């Protein structure tokens, strides 16, 4: 598989009135087409900053950032993005929220409406198309956000701690939903999380970010076959990976991070 996202010594320094803060020192890694890569690290390690740079929402201070063969200069039309907060427009229905990127990208709604309905069906929200966001639970709203991120068939899916505001049970459900949605897809995914188990369960590769200023401290391949049953979390190899990742995070940051 070919390289789709490529970072070469990408760094980001914020200049504030009180001095400059180096959010990311330098990160170098490649993500291949169709690969699911997680960025794992404690809060404030710069993993979200890194994701925002890939999304074109932040400009790297140094380094070279290439997506699909082109240097990133701003947001790209075929990015799907999901934030920690579902960020649904409260006055729009579920269906209209899912179709929002179609409107922004000025594509004909008619062509995408049946796809929107299919996506809504697949995340388990069939029958909720006309509901407004305030009528949904946190998990349901994030399901809508997943559909919205996928509606315009983007090649890249960028997720910034999408499930960290949800309770543990809902979070497990969301992992299953997401894995299922991407099952027959060759989307390239960059997934930011601070949950070790979530990262291992979902990813083909887990990158640990740490240190201050931060860099990539570990690049771990997760080779469990897909589809993955929830039970793989009881597999000794799964637990060994979780243990290795936790050790790496602790080394990098000096903090004890519990495995969710």
């Amino acid at each position, binding site marked *: 598989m070919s390289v789709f996202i490529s970072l070469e010594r990408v760094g980001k320094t914020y200049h504030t009135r009180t001095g400059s803060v180096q959010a990311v020192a330098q990160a170098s890694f490649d993500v291949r087409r169709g690969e699911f890569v997680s960025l794992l690290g404690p809060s404030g390690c710069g993993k979200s900053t890194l994701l925002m740079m890939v999304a074109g929402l932040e400009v790297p201070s140094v380094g070279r950032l290439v997506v699909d063969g082109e240097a990133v200069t701003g947001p*790209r039309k075929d990015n799907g*993005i999901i934030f920690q907060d579902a*960020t649904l427009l409260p*006055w729009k229905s579920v269906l209209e929220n899912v179709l*929002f990127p179609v409107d922004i990208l000025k594509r004909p709604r008619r062509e995408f409406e049946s796809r929107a309905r299919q996506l809504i069906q697949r995340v388990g929200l069939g029958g909720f198309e006309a509901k407004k966001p*305030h009528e949904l639970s946190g998990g349901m709203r994030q399901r809508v956000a997943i559909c919205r991120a996928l509606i315009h068939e983007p090649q890249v899916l960028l997720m910034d701690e999408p499930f960290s505001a949800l309770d543990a049970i809902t979070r497990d459900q969301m992992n299953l939903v997401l894995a299922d949605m991407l099952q027959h897809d060759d989307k390239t995914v960059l997934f930011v999380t601070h949950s070790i188990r979530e990262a291992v369960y979902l990813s083909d590769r887990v990158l640990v970010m740490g240190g201050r200023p931060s860099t990539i401290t570990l690049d771990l391949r997760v080779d469990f076959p897909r589809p993955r049953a929830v039970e793989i979390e009881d597999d000794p190899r799964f637990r060994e990976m979780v243990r290795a990742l936790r050790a790496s995070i602790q080394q990098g940051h000096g903090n004890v991070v519990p495995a969710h």
Partner: protein
Amino acid sequence: MAVPTTSTKLAQQTGDVAVPGIRHMGGRALLLPLLVAGSVLLLWEIGVRWAAVPEVILPSPSAIFGVVIDSREILLRHAIPTTLESAGGFLLASAAGILIAILLTYSEMARQALFPNLVFFQLIPKIALAPLFIMWLGIGSESRLAFSVFISIFPIIIATTAGLSSTDPNAVRLCRALTATEWQIFTAVRFPSALPFIFSGMKIGITLSIIGVIIGEFITSQRGLGYLIIFATSRADTVVAMAAIVVLCISGLLLYGAVSLAEKITDRHYGVPRG
């Protein structure tokens, strides 16, 4: 007439303001205030008759309503220009106020240059300037319209500015991630989410707009309910003045109701349900 300040209105958000929306009114919530109003009118009627208060001091409600019915044609003739000028002033103030607020939101320089001055202007007693408008623009409709715009525009500007700058930053970031243009962000997110604020500003604006027109008519006019009130009181015709006030209340209610109705229609599309 007590006009709530912009800040308290905004703090309470729409719907929770002094006049609750009809939809929040159960049977009792509608009946109770009507019962109180009815009781006050009844006590007034009884008190005036019992104490034999001269009509020039305080006419009875029945006498006032009698004049409203009997002189309806004259009252209507004066009510029309007052209502139309109030509506006109309000519409101009809304359009200009929203445009100025958009300018203030998008131009940092305009905001820095204008906003402190607007807040300062908001604080001065603008009614004191009414005679100047007559001097500048004469005794016709123009001066009353201009003064009405002048006093009703500030809450609309301030509320709209607050609304436009309160957009969820995540929603803006989502739009940017989707390569949205500034115009798309404005039409798809910023403006719709500012609508509740804009309407709360417009509801204050419409009441101020009526005040502006009435003040103008007080100072110099040959027609309008304000003129009628001044004319009647100068002849000690209290009952006619009171009848004009009743009609003015009806006209005010209609104008406020129109804004409220527009808000409800908009709310159905863009409302953020509470609770």
